[in-house]
């Protein structure tokens, strides 16, 4: 089975906070409210919909989901 992983482009992130509001098991806020990926960013099957939601709601388009190696 393909394993997916989320990534945040820190250059694009401006701290809107949509990712950690929508998928708190995958993302957290740092001390200034920018989004950070929790752990290695692996997305369990149960969290895939929420990962996609985070991608679709990031105003800066800073989040990607890709296949983990």
């Amino acid at each position, binding site marked *: 089975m393909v394993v997916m992983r989320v990534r945040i482009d820190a250059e694009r992130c401006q701290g809107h906070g949509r990712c950690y*509001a929508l998928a708190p098991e995958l993302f957290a806020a740092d001390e200034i*409210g920018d989004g950070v990926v929790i752990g290695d960013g692996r997305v369990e099957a149960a969290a895939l919909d929420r990962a996609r939601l985070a991608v679709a709601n990031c105003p800066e388009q800073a989040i990607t989901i890709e296949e983990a190696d």
Partner: protein
Amino acid sequence: MGHHEPVTDWETDFDHTDDVWAADPFPIWDELRAKCPVARTTRYGGGWLPTRFEDVAAVAYDTDRFSSRSVLMTEFRAPMELAPAGIAPPISSDPPYHKDARRMLLPIFSPQAVDRLEPSTRAYCEELIDELRGRDVVDAAAEYAQHIPVRVIANMLGLPEADADAFRGFVDHVIGGVALPIEQRVEGMLALFGYLQGHIEDHIAHPREDLISFLLESELDGQPLDAFQVARTIGLLLIAGIDTTWSAIGASIWHLAKTPADRQRLVAEPGLLPTAIEELLRAYSPVTMARLVRADMEWHGCPMKAEEWVLLSFPAANRDPDAFERADEVIIDRQDNRHAAFGLGIHRCAGSHLARMELRVALEVWLAAFPEFGLADPDAVTWAAGQVRGPRCLPVRIEA
């Protein structure tokens, strides 16, 4: 308002203070987007108005060619000498100065910091509701929405809640008075800074646990902030924190008052509220920003001149059908919602987490107290013109 001639041609002579724009700007933006996606005006010393999402985003991201030295489209442009900080740092600052000035503020407005303010915000909303109970008709804008951010921000900054009327006067002048002649604009700003100066001096003599003292103890580039800079940043937070959030709360209550199906669904499914709030922010985005063109250039075919304005309408961008399906409809369970109500790029609203918390708590408390409510008199609803749009008179019938 009535400071200017009514607009007859939106493509060549737009005016964000026009009465028609204030009452219902959506058809204006839709028509411009289809026929003339970057409108222009000779008012306010010249300006441009992009209405497509991608054009608004392009301006927001292009801090090289569009300066934030002034962000309110008026006859007044902040003096060049105030750069790089600008009149109200960091909203009025450009890179590279902007980054550290903003970073200094962000921890205060982080989600974690905002969480700590939720209980007091909720208690205050409940206090306001208690005073409305038992009445037939209340003004949800003037008697509820308006008071919430005033109290929250006054406590954060360290200004007396009792000065709420004075704050509203300043906000009304700075945001509501954008069409005023330059002398009156300057006079109003001096009054605001005069008021803040007294409180800052008092904080210098008697430091306490609030934002004014925090800023007075902060350093930028290894230098402590001077009192004038503290006053400008506090002025920004006071002005930016009040009628923006007030507008968002008011517009949300207005929508639910006129849309029984959405109101009933949110009463039945309170868990949907965070999703609904994003849609209400998209559809009724309160805040429009402005930029100044840095140097003469042609941009998307428009001959822009240095010091002309670009009105950065996030509200118009959020209604662009190329960016959102069924952009003109309010769909309270919309899942994919990459709206730009809090801006895009380096000037993303620093208070967005606070605003979202206030909006959610205000609506939770309102809906729990008044599950049945509707517009008492739709024709009596009035909307603020200019760059912050929301209902200022909102008579609502409550059946508690």
